[in-house]
């Protein structure tokens, strides 16, 4: 009886020890995976257990949990159990082997050791057979990478807008800045009452703020009926940044499609149905929201001289110096530039 209780306490102690070891191992493993994960800013395909919201636990998320995190959780549990199985098997084989050596031929202990070893091997064999069966089925079905069938890649990001590029920031509705719509801030003071606030060909836009007090925002006069051009420009650019920016170039995603999407998603007609005008060569006539085209390339004009960009083999993005580059490129290629002014489109639509 004494020997039996001694044996049981060893087993209980071993199980507790193993659980602690495996939890430590799991934590260390999760940490290692997190460290090796791709940094933010890279294409958002994650290895499991990576991501900003990672907790290092079995389900690696706090608040921004997606279905992918759930799957990663299942995968981590599987990995954890697999680790536990190997460690437990090795441990019990060692413990039982040692017990057998020190049993001094005691039939009872030898019998218990044999039972324990048998159970150990049965458990391990069961796992092994299951693993072979699954691998075999996958192989038969034609899966190629079956060496790690329990691992998968999925997108842990939620359907959030892609990160905005460093420049140029699109103004939010609460921050209507004069320069965001290509306006000029002109000095005006109440004592100048009666004088025109802006110069000829310009119109005041009091809903857009200037950096200094005593200044008023002046934009090119378009048409009294087309005051919402700035809002539409903002909408088009926001749509480009939120739906097209970051898409991988190729197939149906290219310079024309992404520019067109920014227009159509804003409720404007397709750029294929709009009237292109030859660009007059006056750079100041190009406004954010306009679309330009050479014989081979189409781009959306963004703020501060930036344009949409589509890197072959890369991602849809923003070229901060795109306007200068594309004008130069058209000159180099000897092809005329055409333009669609967003102001014309909005006014025509009205």
């Amino acid at each position, binding site marked *: 009886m004494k020997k039996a209780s001694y044996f049981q306490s060893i087993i209980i102690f071993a199980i507790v020890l193993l659980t602690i070891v495996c939890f430590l191992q799991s934590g260390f493993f999760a940490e290692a995976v997190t460290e090796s994960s791709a940094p933010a800013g890279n294409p958002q395909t994650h290895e499991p257990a990576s991501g900003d919201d990672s907790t290092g636990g079995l389900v690696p998320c706090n608040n921004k949990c997606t279905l992918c995190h759930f799957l990663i959780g299942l995968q981590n549990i599987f990995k954890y159990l697999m680790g536990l199985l190997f460690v437990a098997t090795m441990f019990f084989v060692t413990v039982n082997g040692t017990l057998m050596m020190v049993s001094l031929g005691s039939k009872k202990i030898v019998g218990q050791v044999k039972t324990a070893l048998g159970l150990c091997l049965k458990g391990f064999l069961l796992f092994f057979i299951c693993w072979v069966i699954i691998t075999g089925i996958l192989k038969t079905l034609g899966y190629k990478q079956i060496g790690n069938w329990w691992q998968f890649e999925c997108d842990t990001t939620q359907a959030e807008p892609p990160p905005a590029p460093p420049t140029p920031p699109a103004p939010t509705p609460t921050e209507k800045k004069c320069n965001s719509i290509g306006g000029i801030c002109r000095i005006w003071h109440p004592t100048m009452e009666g004088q025109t606030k802006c110069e000829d060909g310009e119109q005041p836009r009091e809903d857009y703020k200037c950096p200094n007090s005593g200044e008023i925002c002046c934009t090119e006069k378009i048409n009294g009926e087309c005051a919402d051009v700035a809002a539409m420009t903002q909408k088009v650019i926001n749509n480009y940044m939120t739906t097209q920016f970051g898409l991988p170039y190729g197939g149906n995603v290219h310079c024309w499609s992404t520019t067109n999407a920014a227009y159509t998603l804003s409720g404007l007609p397709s750029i294929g149905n709009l009237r292109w005008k030859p660009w007059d060569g006056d750079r100041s006539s190009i406004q954010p929201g306009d679309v330009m085209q050479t014989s081979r390339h189409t781009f959306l004009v963004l703020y501060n001289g930036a344009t949409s*960009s589509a890197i072959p083999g890369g991602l849809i993005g*923003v070229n901060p110096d795109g306007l200068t580059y594309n004008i130069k490129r058209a000159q180099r290629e000897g092809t005329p530039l055409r333009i669609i002014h967003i102001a014309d489109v909005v006014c025509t639509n009205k």
Partner: protein
Amino acid sequence: MSLKKIFIVTGIVVALAFLAIVFFISPQKEKIVLQEQNENQENAMPAALPSETESSGNLENVEKARKIFENISRETVSDKTKKEGSKRIDFKNQKGSPIPLSDFEKALGVEVYPKLREYLSNGYQVFYCPGMGEKKELGVFLQYNMEKIYVGFTYEVLEMMTGWENTILPNLHTVLFPGIDFSEDNLNQKIEFRDGKYRYAEIYLPGGDKGSINYDAIEYGIIVAVSPSCLDKVHPYYESVESN
């Protein structure tokens, strides 16, 4: 346990172990073969170029880059390349990760002009166009880090390139003219770049032959090649163009 049972169990265990080994090894092999195929594959368009995050200074990367370039120099020009007009090669290591530009530089003794280097990402490709006979006209594409581009960069990069012109031959000769053994005098010859369709300079190769270096600063990077016709051929792969 009877001897019969022991034999049966041993047989099953051996069979299972054999199956496990086969299933474990064969996918690994397929993976390696796929990787090699990808490396040798002619890219329909430039592959996704490496990010800034790769660690550099890896000896394995340096060795791998050297091997990839040796393969480029040795391989025969395929009919597909002849038909397409050029072949563009990504440099990836055993794991399939892009080899950083700094490792590529170390591998081939290349030195990119430091001022320009500041504005480059780790994205680059070596390309070649079929030349006379079975010769290859080589070139290299260096991709900008678009996050570092600023208003006015289009013009300033041209100044940077002008600054590189004096040393571009010694800096890039191992990539542009891999089979040619340049002497010190050959490498330090005075070369004068001129404006043409692309910026170009004629150079004297050992043995009295003439060659040229041509480059173009495009929207996403710099292309350098040994012939203007090769620049023409690779342009569509590196510039945004309308989809057909």
